[in-house]
């Protein structure tokens, strides 16, 4: 098992005048968000969240507004200090870092993309993309070549000397993304990065991100309130409500085994055929039995939407499901598929 890149343990964040005083109430007496606000006038931002984020994965953190997801992500680079808990990055205790260590962490190990872009309005696109490098203290000529590379990668060639105010929202966020990638940090924190964009452009940006991730293999923490986005991007999805973790798992687990009504509510409108993969249906063959002859074989990662036509045409409406390593996961039938779609 690989070591987690980012390790969050029992993290609490309480906003108010005396967070330390009310922390025991939340931690030991399980006081909820509403009660804490009413009785003690403190806001519970993050409530006992533990999360392991593995290298080269896209970890989505999802929740409605006010669920504490943006607060949580700001703990990772300590834009917000927690009230209690532990947080390590590459095994290093982030909470014990002093100003200098923290700046080094932010300069070299992680970068961030913001919901409202947060570009520097007085700097050109090229200067914005190079901002992180400039803060690192890199020489100008080197900055220029790095910057140009990332501007090209996000498709903004020709806009180098424009100002952010001259670009559309989608283009501004490409600048934000390029700025985040330019520092070559392992970890990319994306706080509702695409939420302010309209749906088509949002889809485009997701595609760009997936394409880049295929090649760069960064550890990405992606915050969103949009389930479709979460399912599309996330290798792993953590769902927050009222600052606490409700469920964590991959898209299959969330859709097939929602932990409670809150999540059931979340997933009721999604197109399950595009999320559920054959892997989830495969029933292993009896021990030692040979696979039935003449059945079509499909990869385990095929979504039902793509698999169902082949299934309905197959003998006995059954297909063989093959894992990525070539071994056989089992069989899946059309009836199973239809049942899965209806939850």
């Amino acid at each position: 098992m690989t070591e987690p890149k980012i390790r969050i343990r029992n993290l609490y964040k309480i906003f108010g005048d005396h967070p330390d005083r009310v922390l025991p109430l939340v931690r030991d007496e399980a006081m909820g968000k509403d009660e804490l606000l009413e009785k003690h006038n403190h806001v519970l931002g993050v409530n006992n969240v533990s999360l392991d984020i593995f290298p080269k994965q896209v970890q989505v953190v999802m929740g409605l507004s006010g669920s504490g997801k943006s607060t949580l992500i700001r703990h990772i680079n300590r834009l917000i200090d927690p009230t209690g808990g532990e947080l390590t990055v590459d095994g290093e205790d982030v909470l014990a870092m002093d100003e200098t260590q923290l700046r080094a962490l932010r300069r070299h190990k992680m970068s961030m993309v913001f919901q409202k872009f947060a570009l520097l309005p007085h700097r050109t696109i090229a200067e914005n993309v190079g901002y992180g490098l400039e803060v690192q203290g890199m020489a100008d000529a080197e900055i220029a070549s790095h910057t140009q590379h990332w501007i090209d990668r996000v498709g903004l060639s020709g806009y180098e000397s424009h100002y952010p105010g001259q670009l559309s929202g989608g283009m501004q966020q490409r600048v934000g993304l390029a700025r985040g990638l330019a520092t070559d940090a392992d970890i990319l924190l994306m706080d509702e990065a695409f939420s302010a964009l309209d749906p088509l452009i949002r889809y485009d940006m997701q595609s760009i991100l997936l394409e880049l991730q295929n090649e760069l293999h960064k550890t990405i923490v992606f915050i969103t309130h949009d389930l479709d986005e979460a399912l599309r991007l996330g290798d792993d999805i953590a769902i927050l409500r009222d600052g606490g973790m409700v469920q964590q798992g991959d898209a299959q687990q969330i859709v097939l085994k929602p932990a409670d009504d809150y999540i059931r509510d979340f997933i009721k409108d999604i197109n399950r055929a595009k999320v559920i993969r054959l892997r989830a249906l495969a029933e292993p063959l009896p021990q030692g039995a040979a696979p039935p002859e003449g059945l079509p074989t499909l990869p385990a990662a095929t979504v039902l939407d793509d698999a169902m036509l082949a299934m309905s045409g197959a003998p006995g409406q059954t297909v063989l499901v093959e894992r990525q390593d070539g071994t056989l996961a089992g069989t899946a039938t059309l009836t199973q598929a239809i049942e899965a779609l209806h939850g």
Partner: protein
Amino acid sequence: MWEFLTEFPAIGRRDLAVMKKAIDEAFKGFSRTYGESLENFFNPLLKFLVWIEKLLLATPWPVILVVVGGLAWLGSRSWKITTGAVLAFVVIGVFDMWEDTMATLAIISVATLLCIVIGIPVGILMARSERMQQLITPVLDVMQTIPSFVYLIPVVMLLGIGKVPGLIAVLIYAIPPVVRLTNLGIRLVDSEVLEAADAFGASPRQKLFGVQLPLALPNIFAGVNQTIMMALSMVVIASMIGVKGLGVPVLRAISNQYLALGLMNGLAIVALAIIFDRVSQSYGKRLQAYRGQGND
């Protein structure tokens, strides 16, 4: 009984007189002891001011006209403002106010320069600490509202009559806007942009010079503009304590009821004010040219 209610129970006249005298004596003592060293301290300032004044007077007038036109063009990039500025100087020269105008120009430039050099750092200090803001704001309030004649008294007692006390009087009156607007400008910088700078590991210094000051610049510039205007409005009062320039003839006009003389010199001050204002305002606007173009 009634007397108590109708007469405010004030300190007795004699006590008051003793107190005032004590304060006056103390200050006179202070001024006798430190007046000279203070004068020495301000001596470089005096030399600088005199040097600028001499420079302006020694320069042939056509050169000044060219420089005025050039500066106006650099600042505003507008032919209208540039022509207006040059024309105003020509008229001033024709009506024989050239020398006084140069003297005024010298003190205004030095005063503005000092206001910027002192005011911007103080404004930065205020923006970085709530305590500093609480401490400095009332001081600025006093500086802006106290009648200038009141602080002229101790200044003259300390430094006598001359250019430096005049300059100090102008400074006290004109520095608050640049301080206030530097503070305001830095505080108005978008917190999300600052958060981004933090997230990329910018040090406080990198944030100040790379993000806060550049984004506050239009506001700072509005402050500088105000400072220049206020410095100009002090020209007449400063001339009462020995500053040469357009204020002197105005003062003479007041005491002798010379309407035309007062009006002419007054209008020359107005002309200077308008030129400074238009040029610096359009320069300030160009500073924020990156805002509001194209899409939002």
